[in-house]
């Protein structure tokens, strides 16, 4: 009996659930009902009209529909013509998606902004206020003034007053225009600059002059920040160069091995990142913390393997080493092509590495570059510490300075060689993790960095870690300073020409080794 009752209730419930969607549709407000046929036309112009209709109505009920339209989740029931929001894309055949395009979405976003200016969440309010800045009409200005009085959040207040000042620039009264210009001076928002540029041809000379002055002050500040930006771009490019080169600074710089497979060790690190991300698809945000040690181990182990099987037989024969390691680099590339795929593999950015740190409207530093600059310095510091302050570091330096003497002192030079090469290779792997966040991960990844790496190490002075750091960073900055002026292709060529000339003058690089350590 009880069972039957339960069953009936279940049946009733399911019937209710089934009936519910149409019921909901019938409850649509008057404006929504009016907008429905316009959506049905499936033309961007008609949809725009529908959005206008909803935006003007100020109908709060319209917001979720507009939001869904923005997110591509607004559908129309083919038979009934009602609007349906489908969150999970689970649509079936009866639903037809309402098409949007970029300009329409921009339009809808402004409409949503207008409707959500009195949203309880300050973040939403700020977003909508910022979206309105350049489009404040006199009718809206009155509404904004009312909102400004009630506003408590300082950032929103600022955005609202900026919008009002921009609206005041259109005022008929000269005094109002002048105060507006005055309040806008020094504001770096791009909309302000454009608006002021049009004001410089104002019919009133006084206003035009004021606009010119305000504009000049803005442009001076912007130019200053422009230089800061270039410097940052240069440092970030430089830190990529340093990361790619620093492993080589050990294997080539300290041990004197010309390792053409260095690029492929970087590539292995990048592929390790890919594999780690495949293994933990739900924790991409943390994947890099796993990938860094994993890449160190993978590339380091590969490095030790290469050293033990090939390079150790070739010490003191640089030409043969060069050829042998070049062969290894081809083998490693083909290995990746065969085992994984000849195509590039997708490596995602963790959310904390996407986006940018906005300092002001003209200067924002992208997080991925920012973290890589910091990461580069961290890796450098660690490596420096290992070489200076640990037993291994002491032995490495001893062997590289005078192998015979070090052996006489009881250092097992073969073991030290393997470990040093492993350390340099491991660092290359770590660099691969960083590069996977910036560039394509594919079998050819290493090739594009090997030349740059040698360039940095030779320029900095073989055998000197500091040299590598300074050389990498300064080459990055020089490249980025030249780039806007000469273009990307020519800038790179100019840097290479500069290095050729520099090496002619100072064959031992920026920081040559001195004294007995210089060897030969």
């Amino acid at each position: 009996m009880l069972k039957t009752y339960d069953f009936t209730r279940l049946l009733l419930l399911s019937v209710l659930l089934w009936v519910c969607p149409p019921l909901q549709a019938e409850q649509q407000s008057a404006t929504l009902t009016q907008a429905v046929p316009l959506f049905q036309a499936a033309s961007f112009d008609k949809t725009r009209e529908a959005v206008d209709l909803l935006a003007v109505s100020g109908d709060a009920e319209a917001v979720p529909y507009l939001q869904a339209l923005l997110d591509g989740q607004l559908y129309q029931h083919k038979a009934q013509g009602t609007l349906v929001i489908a969150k999970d894309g689970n649509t079936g055949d009866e639903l037809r998606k309402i098409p949007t395009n970029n300009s329409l979405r921009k339009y809808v976003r402004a409409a949503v902004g207008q409707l959500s200016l009195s949203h309880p969440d300050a973040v939403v309010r700020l977003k909508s206020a910022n979206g309105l800045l350049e489009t404040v009409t006199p009718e809206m200005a009155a509404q904004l003034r009312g909102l400004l009085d009630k506003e408590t959040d300082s950032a929103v207040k600022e955005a609202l007053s900026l919008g009002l000042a921009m609206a005041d620039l259109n005022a008929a009264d000269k005094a109002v225009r002048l105060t507006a210009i005055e309040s806008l001076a020094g504001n770096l928002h791009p909309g302000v600059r454009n608006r002021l540029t049009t004001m410089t041809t104002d019919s009133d000379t006084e206003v035009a002059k004021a606009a010119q002055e305000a504009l000049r002050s803005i442009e001076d500040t912007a130019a200053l920040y422009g230089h800061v930006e270039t410097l940052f771009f240069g440092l970030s490019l430089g830190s990529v160069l340093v990361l790619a080169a620093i492993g080589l600074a050990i294997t080539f710089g300290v041990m004197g091995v010309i390792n053409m497979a260095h690029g492929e060790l970087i590539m292995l690190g990048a592929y390790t990142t890919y594999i780690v991300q495949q293994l933990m698809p739900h924790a991409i945000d943390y994947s890099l913390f796993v990938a860094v040690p994993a890449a160190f181990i993978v590339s380091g182990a590969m490095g030790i393997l290469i050293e033990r099987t090939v390079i150790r037989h070739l010490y003191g024969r640089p030409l043969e080493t060069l050829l042998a390691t070049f062969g290894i680099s081809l083998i490693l590339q083909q290995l990746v092509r065969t085992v994984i795929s000849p195509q590039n593999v997708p490596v995602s950015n963790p959310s904390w590495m996407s986006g940018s740190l906005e300092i002001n409207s003209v200067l924002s530093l992208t997080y991925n570059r920012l973290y890589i600059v910091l990461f580069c310095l961290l890796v450098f510091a660690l490596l420096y510490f290992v070489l200076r302050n640990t037993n291994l570091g002491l032995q490495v330096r001893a062997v590289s300075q005078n192998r015979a003497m070090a052996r006489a002192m009881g250092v097992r030079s073969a073991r030290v060689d393997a470990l040093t090469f492993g350390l340099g290779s491991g660092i290359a792997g770590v660099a691969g993790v960083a590069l996977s966040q910036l560039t394509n991960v594919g079998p050819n990844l290493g090739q594009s960095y090997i030349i740059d790496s040698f360039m940095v190490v030779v320029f900095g002075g073989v055998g000197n870690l500091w040299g590598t750091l300074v050389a990498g960073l300064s080459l990055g900055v020089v490249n980025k300073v030249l780039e806007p002026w000469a273009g990307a292709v020519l800038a790179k060529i100019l840097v290479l020409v500069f290095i050729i000339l520099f090496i002619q003058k100072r064959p031992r690089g920026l920081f040559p080794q001195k004294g007995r350590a210089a060897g030969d």
Partner: protein
Amino acid sequence: MFLNNVFKRTLLVVSMAAALGASSLAMADGDTIKVGVLHSLSGTMAISETTLKDTMLMLIDEQNKKGGVLGKKLEAVVVDPASNWPLFAEKARDLIEKDKVAATFGCWTSVSRKSVLPVFEEKNSLLFYPVQYEGEESSKNVFYTGAAPNQQAIPAVDYLMKEGEVKRWVLAGTDYVYPRTTNKILEAYLKSKGVDEKDIMINYTPFGHSDWQSIVADIKKFGGEGKKTAVVSTINGDANVPFYKELGNQGISAEDIPVVAFSVGEEELSGIDTKPLVGHLAAWNYFMSVENDGNKEFIKQWKAYTKNDKRVTNDPMEAHVIGFKMWVKAVEQAKSTDTDKVAEAMIGQEVPNLTGGTAKMLPNHHLTKPVLIGEIQADGQFEVVSKTPEVPGDAWSDFLPDSKNIVADWTGKETDGKPCGNFNTETKKCSGQKYE
């Protein structure tokens, strides 16, 4: 036991003989018609071109199931030019001289096409070229089944002008022949539409460029000067990924500064993280997402043929489908595989395309194609936001001063009766095909 063994052996011998007999019978039945497939299966272009080789094999297979052409089976001769441009010419010569192919389907990059062109003209054989290209060419021996600039680049710019109300333009490309020629045409076109010199920014980067920070910052600045800006990208290959990533990181959305690309398709998107690309545009003549019965059938066939449910279809594949079907019809109409007869029969051939329209071969050896603009979706597919009716392909751009007066007509109607691919309407002279 012993007998049993003997019996088995005899059976084997007999069946082998039967098999041999059957095969020799098949041979005697009339030899096959050979079709050359000239796509790189190794090297940098292998990623894109291998797919086209598979497409050709599938099409030939399908045609053979229908009974072949002129009562003969088709036989694909696949060679690998290994992304090596001079090798393309050698392999093409082999196909024509040694294998005696009736027609060749192949090439991807413009430089490989330029490399094989003299061979096809010298040996008078046919090439079907399936990729969008920079135009400024019309050879008697080549059928261009991909888009000419007026079927891809110019309609895309028109769309942005009209729908996006774009006033400023960034023309960004990789530093080689296709982007440079396309941008030259686009620049001339924009100026003819009244766009000011200072509202056009042109930028070239090397192949595989990955450090886009300052270029994207420049684009941002350029776009922040009050007028709606768009980027027209002829950036090639994998340099696109870091470019779109950098746009995303610097906070430039497709709504602020849309990027329309001519080299980014389904195949290119299938291997990458598409999040930073969503909302940006691409212009092609075919998208996998187009809802059409012919397309649905083709996708089903392709997935079954490759035995992979995740494989995507793309624009150059459609070009091969159209080109192959036209060739089959032309051969049947000409009742011969003779180059001149087939080439004559090709002109005017009509074949349904996969987007619900009809492709027609024009006297200048280009096709009529609809132009589709699509927005990139998170799943690597495109949502079509604009579709034009069929546009006739124009071999010689009307927007370049050098080629304005040049027309191509292999029937001779517009070229004073003499078939010509390079006819100057002012001097009334056919200057012959010129190769750059």
